[in-house]
C-alpha cells in the first residue's frame, strides 16, 4: 500500500514539473471542446444558391422568395443562362442551383403542372440530402398555397378544403440543435483520448529511459505498480471531466439533465476501460512512438468511427454492428447522451454500466497479467 502511494506521489511530482504536460491536461481539453463544440455541427443552414429564372413572372419571383425566406437557402447570385450554372457548381460558388423554366407562371395560372429544376452539388451527400428535403418541402408549400388561392377564388361554390395539420413535438432536443447532441459525445471522446494516450505512454516511457528496469528489481508487486501508475491518470481524467462539464454547462449552455453524481460514477467506470487499454498498449510496446501509433490506430480510430459517435450504429452492416459491442465507447456514448439530453437515470443505464464494468475488469486483468515485471 505504501509502495502505491510512493508511485502516485512520484507521478504527480513528475507531472507537475512538466509544463507541457500541464498544458495538455488542463488547457487542451477545454480548447478542444470549445472548438469542436462549434465545429462539430451537422445542422444544414445557409445553403449557397444560384437562381436561373427564365420565366421572370410574379409567380417565379414568389417561388424564389419562398426559398430565400426559408432560412435554409441564401440566394447569392442570378444566372442568365442554364449553361452558366456549371461554373457556379464547379467552383463551389454555390451548392444549389434553382432553374425556373419559361412559362412557369402561365402554367400555374392555367392550373397546369409546372416544372422546377434543381441542380445539387452531391459531393457532400448528407448536406445535399438535407438541402433537397428542404427544397421539396418549400416546393410543396408553394403548390399548396397555389391550390388554396385557386380554391379561394372559387369561394361560394360550396367546396370545403380539408387539411391535415400535424402537431409535432420533439422530445429531448426541442430545437433539434446538433450541438446538444455532439457536445456530450465530444466530452466522451476527449476523456477517452486523454486517458488512453497518457497511460499508453506511462509504462513505455519508463522502459525507454531505463527506470522500469530499476523498478522491476525492487520487491514492489506488479499490481501495486500498476495501481500506482493508473491512479494519477484517473484523477487527471476526473479533473478533465469537471473542466469539460463546466465548459459544456456555462459556455455552451448544454448542462447534463440527469444526475451529476451518476455521471461522475459512470465516467469512472469508463475510465477503467480506457486506462486499461492504454496500459495494455504500453506494456506491449517497446517505444513511445510505437505506443502512440498503436493507441491511435487500434483503439481511438475504431472507437471514434464505430462507437456511434459519428455514424449511427443502426445503419452499419450486421458484422460491423457486432464489432461495436467490443468498444467501451459505444456504451459510454449511450450513457452520456442519455444523461445529458434525456436526463435518464440508473434505471435506464444499468445495462450499459454493467458492460463497462465487465470490460474494465477484463482489460485491467489482462494488462496486469501481461505486465509480468520482466523485461523479456
Amino acid at each position, binding site marked *: 500500500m505504501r509502495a502505491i502511494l*510512493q508511485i502516485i506521489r512520484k507521478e504527480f511530482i513528475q507531472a507537475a514539473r512538466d509544463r507541457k504536460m500541464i498544458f495538455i491536461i488542463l488547457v487542451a481539453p477545454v480548447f478542444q471542446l470549445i472548438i469542436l463544440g462549434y465545429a462539430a455541427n451537422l445542422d444544414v443552414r445557409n445553403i449557397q444558391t444560384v437562381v436561373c429564372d427564365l420565366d421572370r413572372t410574379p409567380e417565379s419571383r414568389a417561388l424564389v422568395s419562398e426559398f430565400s425566406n426559408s432560412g435554409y437557402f441564401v440566394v447569392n447570385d442570378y444566372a442568365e443562362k442554364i449553361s452558366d450554372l456549371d461554373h457556379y457548381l464547379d467552383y463551389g460558388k454555390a451548392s444549389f442551383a434553382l432553374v425556373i423554366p419559361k412559362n412557369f407562371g402561365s402554367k400555374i395560372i392555367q392550373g397546369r403542372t409546372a416544372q422546377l429544376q434543381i441542380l445539387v452539388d452531391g459531393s457532400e451527400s448528407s448536406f445535399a440530402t438535407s438541402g433537397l428535403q428542404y427544397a421539396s418541402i418549400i416546393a410543396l408549400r408553394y403548390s399548396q398555397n397555389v391550390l388554396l388561392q385557386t380554391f379561394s377564388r372559387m369561394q361560394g361554390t360550396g367546396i370545403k378544403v380539408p387539411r391535415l395539420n400535424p402537431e409535432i413535438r420533439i422530445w429531448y432536443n426541442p430545437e433539434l440543435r446538433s450541438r446538444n447532441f455532439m457536445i456530450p459525445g465530444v466530452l466522451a471522446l476527449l476523456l477517452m483520448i486523454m486517458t488512453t494516450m497518457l497511460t499508453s505512454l506511462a509504462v513505455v516511457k519508463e522502459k525507454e529511459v*531505463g*527506470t522500469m528496469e*530499476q523498478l522491476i*528489481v525492487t520487491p514492489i*508487486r506488479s499490481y501495486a505498480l500498476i495501481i500506482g501508475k493508473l491512479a494519477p491518470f484517473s484523477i487527471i481524467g476526473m479533473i478533465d471531466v469537471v473542466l469539460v462539464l463546466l465548459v459544456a454547462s456555462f459556455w455552451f449552455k448544454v448542462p447534463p439533465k440527469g444526475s451529476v453524481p451518476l455521471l461522475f460514477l459512470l465516467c469512472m467506470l469508463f475510465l477503467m476501460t480506457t486506462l486499461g487499454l492504454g496500459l495494455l498498449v504500453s506494456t506491449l510496446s517497446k517505444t513511445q512512438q510505437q505506443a502512440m501509433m498503436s493507441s491511435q490506430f487500434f483503439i481511438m480510430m475504431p472507437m471514434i468511427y464505430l462507437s456511434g459517435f459519428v455514424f449511427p450504429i443502426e445503419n452499419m452492416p450486421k458484422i460491423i454492428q457486432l464489432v461495436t459491442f467490443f468498444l467501451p465507447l459505444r456504451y459510454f456514448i449511450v450513457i452520456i447522451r442519455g444523461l445529458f439530453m434525456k436526463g435518464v437515470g440508473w434505471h435506464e443505464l444499468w445495462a450499459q454500466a454493467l458492460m463497462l464494468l465487465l470490460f474494465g475488469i477484463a482489460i485491467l486483468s489482462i494488462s496486469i497479467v501481461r505486465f509480468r*515485471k*520482466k*523485461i523479456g
Partner: protein
Amino acid sequence: MSEPAISVHNLTKRFGDFLAVNNVSFQVGKGEIFGFLGANGAGKSTTIRMLCGLLSSTSGTATVAGYEINQQPEKVKENIGYMSQKFSLYDDLTVRENIRFFGGVYGLRGKELKDRMEWAVEMAGLQGRENSLTVELAGGWKQRLALGCAILHNPKIVFLDEPTGGVDPVSRRNFWELINQLSEQGTTVFVTTHYLDEAEYANRIMLIQAGEIIAGGSPKELKETHIKNPILEVECDQVVSAMEILQQQDWVIETTIFGTYLHTSVTNEDEGRKKIQKVLAENNISIKRMDRIVPSLEDVFIYLIDQGSPAAKEESR
C-alpha cells in the same frame, strides 16, 4: 566456504536461435567482490539480469541469497541491490526525491528512511545539492547516487552491471573505493565490466565468452595458470614491422602490440632477450628498452580469447 551468496547451476538463456548464456555454473562466496568479465555481447548482462529476476532463464537453476530465482523472485529482490550502466534514476526528480522514492519502494520509513537518505547523500558527495534535479548532475555523481539508491535497503548482495561505463577515470577509482567499502562491511558484490584494469580489484574473476565460461579464479591464479611463459615488454622503433618480424620466429610464442610497446612471450627469458636483440638488429630496428613484466589481466584475457577462438580451435586439431 560457508553457504554461498550466489550459486548457479547450468543456467541457460536462449533468445530464439541465439544462445546468449550456455550452461553456466559458478558460485560466489559471501562478502566477495566477484568480477564478471567479457566482451560486449558475451552474455554478462544476460546472466546478471537472470540473477536479478529481470529475465527468466530458459533452463538451469540459481539461488541468490538462499532463494531460487524462478521460484521466489520477490524474496530475491528484497535481498539484492541492482544498478546498471544506464543510471536508472528519474532525471526529472531531485536528488532527495529520487532517494525518497526508492527508499519508499523498498519499504523504508520514518527515522530509518531519514538516516539512509543522509547516508546516501553523503556517500554520493551531494551534500548541499539535495534539491538539484538529477538531470543536472555530472556522470560520476549520478553514478554514485544511483548506487546509493540501489542499496538504500542494505541488501546482502549488490549486482552492478557495467557500473563505470562512460565515467571519467577519477570517478571510476572513487567508485571502486565504494565497492571495497561495501565488501568490507560484508556485502557481496557481483560486478560486470569490460575494463580489465578494474577487474584487478576483484577477489575472484570469471571470464565469459560467447555465453560460456572460459576461465575463473583470482587475478593472481588466472595469471599463474594461463601465463606460464615470461613476457618481455619491448620498446622500439617501427612497432608494427617489429611485431611482424617477431611473429615469424618459431621461438616466439606470441607477440601483440600493447599501446606503443610490444609484449612478446618466450620460453626462456635470457635466451629470448638475446634472440630478440639479434633479430631486430638484423632488420635495423633499434630497441630502446626491454623488460620482463608481470602479466596483466589483459595479457591473460587476450591469451584466453585466442585459445578459445574458433580459428585457434581449428589449428589445434
